[in-house]
């Protein structure tokens, strides 16, 4: 019964929080409207998202977020320096294949997003069987080093969070 009306309890809680933050002020009326939205939106989107994302280890998730924020700041500076000071002819773009050990769609999505937000790399595509990611590097020569870095820094942590 509860499962039928709240297919995604986590999403519902997030929607309430998001609505209250959007209002930017606590009023009981907005809480009621947030509650209505938090039931209606997950019900309407449930057919497109049958599974629940399974975060098994919230401590590891918090650690992962801190690492990603640090890497985003670092990557901004790295990319800015390349754009400003490296001559156009010396920038060497490179495609890298990253084989995946992750299997759940949510975990792969988080990994792909993280790669795009961090040092000099953008996720371009996934192999059709979901076992490898195609990553584009702005300026790199060693594909193996980048692959190992992504796997050890992000994927092992995501394995602990989701699987």
């Amino acid at each position, binding site marked *: 019964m509860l499962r039928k009306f709240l297919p995604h309890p986590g999403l519902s809680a997030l929607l309430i929080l998001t609505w209250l933050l959007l209002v930017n002020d606590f009023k009981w009326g907005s809480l009621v409207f947030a509650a209505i939205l938090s039931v209606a939106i997950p*019900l309407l989107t449930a057919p497109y998202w049958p599974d629940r994302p399974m975060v098994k280890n919230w401590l590891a998730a918090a650690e992962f977020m801190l690492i990603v924020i640090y890497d*985003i700041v670092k990557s901004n500076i790295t990319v800015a320096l390349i754009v400003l000071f490296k001559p156009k002819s010396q920038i060497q773009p490179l495609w890298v*294949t990253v084989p995946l050990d992750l299997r759940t769609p949510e975990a792969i999505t988080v990994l792909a997003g993280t790669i795009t937000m961090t040092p000099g790399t953008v996720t*371009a595509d996934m192999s*059709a*069987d979901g*076992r490898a990611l195609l990553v*584009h590097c702005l300026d790199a020569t060693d594909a193996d080093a980048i692959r190992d870095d992504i796997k050890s820094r992000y994927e092992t942590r995501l394995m602990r969070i989701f699987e």
Partner: protein
Amino acid sequence: MFAEILVAALLVISGVFALVGSYGLIKLPDLMTRLHAPTKASTLGVGGALIASMLHAIVWRNEVSWHELLITLFLFLTAPITANFIAKAHMADKLKSGDLPPTGTDRDWATLDLSEEPVQPVMTPPGQPGRPS
């Protein structure tokens, strides 16, 4: 006074990063490398302005403003997806399997894979059309 210096410094830093991100669009040679400049350099550009805005609200108006946190969240959600869609459109339009490294698995990259097999892992079951039950 200290807060004023901090807010001013954050605004200058964010302005510099936003400028570098835009300059990258002119300087970098092709679409895939151009994709790097706005997705990265502008994150810190927008982020700095948002932190400055929150700080300003706390110090001068004595209230906490939450909109900035939401903007950060939406930005982090949308930036990688936009970059991914642009990259996929570029792949479908301009690139062939030979231009890309091998997948190392049995099937080609999803954008270039023209077989009838569904892309894995399957997220949405075929399901019935119409209203959700």
